[in-house]
């Protein structure tokens, strides 16, 4: 089961990096904005990975804490960075 979880996490990290790459073609941000987005995304995925393992081991409280203490701040970081630092790239064509 844990190997399956690794596989799923691999897919999620890949999709995450494509998502950030896509965002980079749509918006402009200073370096600290991008750092916040990338760290936030890693935190979101780390929290999901942690909680997945916690649910597998049957310690749901650990999973819930991981989502609350890692993924939620991660989401906030991404949203806040987007909200305060991002400016739309205007297409030249």
């Amino acid at each position, binding site marked *: 089961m844990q190997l399956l979880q690794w596989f799923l996490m691999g897919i999620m990290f890949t999709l995450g990096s*494509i998502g950030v790459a896509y965002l*980079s073609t749509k918006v402009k941000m200073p370096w600290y904005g991008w750092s916040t987005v990338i760290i936030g995304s890693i935190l979101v995925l780390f929290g999901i990975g*942690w909680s997945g393992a916690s649910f597998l081991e049957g*310690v749901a409280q650990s999973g819930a*804490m*991981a989502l609350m203490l890692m993924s939620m701040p991660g989401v906030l970081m991404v949203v806040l960075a987007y909200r305060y630092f991002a400016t739309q790239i205007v297409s030249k064509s």
Partner: protein
Amino acid sequence: MTTKNISQNETANEQLEADLDNPERRTLLKRAAIGGGAVLAAGMGSYAAGKSSVQGVPDLSWPVVTDDFKSFPQRNTVLSYAISPQQMMRHPERNEQFGRLNKNNPNYNFQVQVPGYEFKPWDNSRPGFTQLDHALQHSSWFPPFSTELRLAGLGTPNSRFYSWDQSDVELEQYQFGSEKEASDAIRAAAKLYGAVRCGIARRDKRFDYDPIYDAGITTEMMNSLESQGVHKLRDYKQVAGAMQEAMKEFKVQDRELTWEHDFPFVPKSVIVLAVPMDYDNLATAPSRTSGATVGDGYTKMATLASSIAKFIKNLGFQAVACGNDLGSSVAYGIAAGLGEGGRNNQLLVPGYGPRVRICKVYTDFEFVEYDQAHTWGMTEFCKSCKKCGEACPSQAIDMSDDTHFYYDGEHSDQPGYAWGNHEGIKKFHTDAKKCFDYWLESDNDCGACAAACTFNEPDYWHHWFIMAINPYTPKFIHSLMAELHPAFGYGSTEDPAKVKKFWKTGEGMRVNETNRHAFGAVGKA
């Protein structure tokens, strides 16, 4: 290739060319590739760094000892004293002092409580102490009770599984190609027989019990006391009377044995082996339920160590298996690189914490690659974490902020109080008398300090992650980690929910979707 496939490929190529011609798409593809590559590289890098971190680093400074540090006489271990009627007569002041200082009872006596230990009736209204839990605990001790293992568990040397007899050593000695080949072969055999860790240390006299002590009581004597119903008596005067009769009948005579005259050979190496205890079962501590993984561990120790001793003898070398006897299992476990010493005075093994039982094989075989002490920053972590001490119902655990050379807990100012402590080595020093007194009083072998330990973790990646970053985290993060451990739902003790959870772990055993560490892991099979 069919016409349809050719036209599909052409369409795909055209699409790719169109994408590459589109500058926005080209940037996206480039960045996605760079991002994906970075994620892959970071993932592989972290994995490699983590894997190397959990190997630990050699700890050349261990052990830190005083100039006069020497081996400990086994008679002074609390278990040896507590099972010995003759030591009771020789050292009544030990019972008196402990009782007066801790129990407000100068007539306190360890020895008379031992025959009735773990025989109090069950209580079906108390989770962990019901007939179901009682049945499990007593079934786990059935193999040790049927052999001499019960006495071996209390430290009696030269018993059936841990025999000193060397008459079956092969005359021809097997020649290994290299020391590594020899060590690998020993480890392969150990793994086959159920060890989760195996290390080989040089014999170090300072960690051997010297002299070795045999309290002289026998399985026949204990069985006789049981058949008379002495284990059910709660009037200690009657117990004392029955014990005196049994001592006369079985001619109980304790004795001390020396390595030079009594042990059959001069040991050169000590093979140290760890067997796991079940996570969910130990999580129910302190209870009769958790006593089951302890009893089961004693049987597994005996079959493992005796099989390895026999393996060495079959190769033409002398070997004696042992459990708690002959030497300090924790010290040898550290010397063999299996783990570090914890605040709870147990061996903390990466990936298990204190949730292992240790057995050893003394041998004169020395053509091996020796292991050495390693550190993972666990003893350092203990300095900021006192979870075991907080969980200990008898306040037996050292709560000092740092390791030290002498027992300095409660009553350390009383002359002779630390008779059961091996002093002169830098570590935490538990009051084992208080611990064993709690076992006798609560009628189970507790284990709360092992269940509560921050390093007692199930085998999942996030716990290994914590293990891997531990050596690189500062002290204040250690304190935070120790506090978060219970907040995340781990390490609670005296928890009826854990008992309920344990009794559910048999679900799903017809088909098991993972064969990884089914025993000792967590959750359903």
